[in-house]
């Protein structure tokens, strides 16, 4: 998502210098007002009374529970979407079968659909009034208002990233090396592990970083399916909302700062990885639908 360090050009001249300074001021001013100052403010507000209240807010049982639930959701949704994402990328890039277009569309849908709509759609299948609701409750399986539903919501919204990041790398790699492996006696599994995966690994890792960021931050879909039960189905973003609505500014800010730090770590990882995979632009839309939307 970030580009290479741009080079500067354009000739000098005092009037151009002035207008350039003007444009720079407007652009940076806009960014400061919209992005940087609000972000700085929340860090200031969180730490203005020292570390003690922050520590207290962080070690609150419900906060701890929300944190670990977030980790649990990531730990389930990210590996699933990584494995299936690589599989989808291989199918779309290497397979030849009817319905490729449909598959491409299905994995892009999460980009086009509001998280709230995702949540509602899941409720309509797995909720009490949903298609499978009766069957599920007869068998004592809770999906909606429970962790499995949150897993589904998290996995849905973070589905496309690994596939979408892997596809262009696979395309660039071409099939020669894989065919060479086949003529050397490697079976499909050996070819994948020894030749394909090592060649696409940085694309996959980039996709995993985006998937993780999206899974950690998901709010709309989980807020529909979770029931937002304190200490049970509240992950970190839901906990932020809960604290905020209960006028616990410190609790809300502390959790928000934890999430903001994770987001900054994501940016750092994205930038390091872009350098590794410098050959390609992260921005060229890989699909007929939307490229990267977290």
């Amino acid at each position: 998502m970030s580009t290479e360090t741009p080079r500067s050009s354009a000739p000098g001249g005092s009037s151009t210098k002035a207008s350039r300074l003007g444009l720079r001021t407007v652009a940076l001013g806009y960014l400061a007002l919209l992005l940087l100052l609000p972000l700085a403010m929340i860090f200031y507000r969180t730490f203005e009374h020292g570390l003690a209240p922050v520590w207290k807010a962080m070690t609150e049982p419900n906060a701890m529970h929300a944190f670990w639930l977030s980790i649990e959701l990531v730990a389930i949704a990210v590996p699933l979407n990584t494995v299936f994402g690589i599989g989808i990328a291989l199918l779309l890039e290497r397979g030849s079968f009817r319905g490729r277009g449909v598959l491409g569309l299905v994995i892009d849908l999460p980009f086009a659909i509001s998280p709230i709509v995702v949540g509602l759609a899941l409720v309509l299948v797995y909720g009490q009034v949903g298609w499978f609701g009766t069957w599920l409750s007869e068998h004592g399986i809770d999906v909606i208002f429970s962790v499995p539903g949150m897993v589904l919501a998290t996995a849905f919204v973070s589905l496309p990233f690994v596939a979408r990041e892997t596809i262009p790398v696979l395309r660039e790699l071409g099939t020669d090396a894989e065919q060479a492996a086949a003529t050397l006696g490697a079976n499909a599994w050996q070819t994948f592990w020894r030749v394909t995966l090592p060649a696409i690994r940085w694309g996959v890792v980039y996709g995993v970083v985006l998937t993780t960021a999206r899974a950690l931050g998901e709010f709309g879909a989980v807020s529909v399916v979770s029931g937002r039960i304190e200490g049970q189905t509240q992950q970190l973003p839901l906990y932020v909302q809960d604290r905020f609505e209960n006028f616990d500014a410190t609790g809300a800010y502390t959790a928000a700062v934890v999430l903001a730090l994770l987001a900054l770590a994501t940016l750092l990882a994205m930038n390091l990885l872009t350098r590794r995979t410098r050959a390609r632009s992260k921005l060229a839309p890989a699909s007929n639908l939307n490229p990267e939307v977290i």
Partner: protein
Amino acid sequence: MLGRGLLGIYLSVLVVLPIAALLARSSHGGLSAFWREVSSPEAQAAIKLTLGVSAVVVALNAVFGTLIAWVLVRDEFRGKKVVNALIDLPFALPTVVAGVVLLALYGKNGPLGIDITFTRTAVAMALLFVTLPFVTRSVQPVLLELDGSAEEAAASLGASRLMVFRRIVLPALTPAIISGIALSFARALGEFGSVVLISGNLPFKTEVGSVYIFGQIQNENLPAAAAVSVVLMVLALIVLAALSVLSRARSKHVH
């Protein structure tokens, strides 16, 4: 083969069945029932507000997003790399945190003495925040390709800076700007997390489509929720499909 089967099950459980259920539910009572839900006054107000605010936000994005891209490519200043990296922050930051962050500065107890909570301005601001990267990130690579020699040539022929921008730079950037606009618009249509805390969700005033759907789910009015969901989803798909058709037509034109 086993892998394909598993993949089919995964996608069905996760995506295909839920979307099918949504479509089924919204068309449950036929077209007239669908229309009744969509045209209820509150739903109408929410959809109109969503479209209106999204349009304003997208227009602002077109201007500021392009400006930011230009400054990041053609200007040189200390800390540019950091600024460049931070552009992606709205993509990485959880949306609910975006709402909290904006309120910390512009909310009731903010240091500026401004209070935007529960206003349409707040809704617009939240949407501006989450859609910030789209235009900038699609314009940036095009500006990088445009190496400035055409601009210099035009300037050497006596064109004023404004003319150079209007005649040379802007036409080259237009497809990228449109693409950024379309992605911003699709995103703004469905945005929830950043809006829900900041807007107060006042029906007929600050309640956008996604928040309306959420309210109807809470009220167990699933037909209304499903109908408006389908409207938002179809609108976003139309925008993205149009973008895809446009960019394909363009790439054919180029090659």
